[in-house]
């Protein structure tokens, strides 16, 4: 593998990831923040590819960009009128957040960068080997965590169904014939302050 293309790919993907991540935080409109997540996820996927983790390149695209982000955008579009309500987007913690995170980032980067990472000599396995090693580890050494993760996903599935049901119970779907009922959902223009 020649070095220069990989380096160019790394720097451009890193720039893509960081800039779009910054825009996620900076964007004033929520749905724009969601849209900016897409190049960020794609950039991270590309970084996985430069790390020779081909399976995770695909998994990142499939899970983060293809499923998670679509769900988020979907929720944003479903609650569109809520998201355009005028609430201050920024919390009062701004300055402290900046200071703390800057310190965190700089110190972590320093610690990481000053550690002498011995240059690896082993060449990473090809994608075929990697996928196979992963599969064998999943049903071998990591069988129990794997099952636990599947249980977690199952419980999340059930939980999502329960949440959706509870939320739908007060306002049942109008039957196809009775369209005389007025829509009760049109009265949420101003947010009700609590306490």
């Amino acid at each position, binding site marked *: 593998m020649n*070095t220069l*293309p*990989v*380096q160019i790919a790394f720097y451009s993907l890193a720039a893509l990831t*960081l800039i779009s*991540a*910054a825009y*996620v*935080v900076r964007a004033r409109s*929520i749905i724009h*923040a969601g849209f900016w997540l897409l190049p*960020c996820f794609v950039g991270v996927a590309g*970084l996985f590819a430069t790390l020779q*983790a081909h*399976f*995770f390149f695909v*998994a*990142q695209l499939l*899970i*983060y960009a293809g*499923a*998670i982000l679509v769900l*988020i955008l979907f*929720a944003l579009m479903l*609650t569109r009128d809520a*998201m355009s309500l005028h*609430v*201050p*987007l920024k*919390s009062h*913690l*701004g300055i402290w*957040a900046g200071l703390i*995170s800057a310190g965190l*980032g700089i110190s972590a*980067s320093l610690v*990481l960068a000053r*550690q002498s990472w011995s*240059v690896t000599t*082993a060449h*990473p396995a090809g994608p075929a080997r990697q996928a196979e090693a*992963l599969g064998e*580890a*999943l049903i071998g050494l*990591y069988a129990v*965590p794997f099952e636990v*993760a*599947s249980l*977690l*996903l199952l419980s*999340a*599935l059930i939980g*999502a169904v329960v*949440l959706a049901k*509870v*939320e739908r119970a007060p306002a049942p779907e109008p039957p196809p014939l009775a369209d005389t009922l007025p829509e009760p959902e049109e009265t949420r223009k101003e*947010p*009700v*302050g*609590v306490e």
Partner: protein
Amino acid sequence: MLGVPTEYFLVLSGILFTIGVIGVLIKRNPIVIFMCIELMLNAVNLTFIALGRHFVHVNGQMYVIFVMAVAAAEVAIGLGIIVALFRSKETINIDEVNLMKY
């Protein structure tokens, strides 16, 4: 050989994680906070993959699989909660959602 040293990836993921932390701290909309958590998880994944390559071991990649599973579950539940919360309280300001506080 390997084009980019491992520490570059680690620093990059550190910065990405920091951006996520900033977002979580300064934003008030739960969905944006959610996105920033996803950023942090992505940074962690990047670290795991980079270290997995560095030590030529499958462990790092295994963790990423579990992180992705947890992230998927988290999104399904979290978005459900947020939408339900919005339906019941009609607010999206996370500072006003303090039912469990008292």
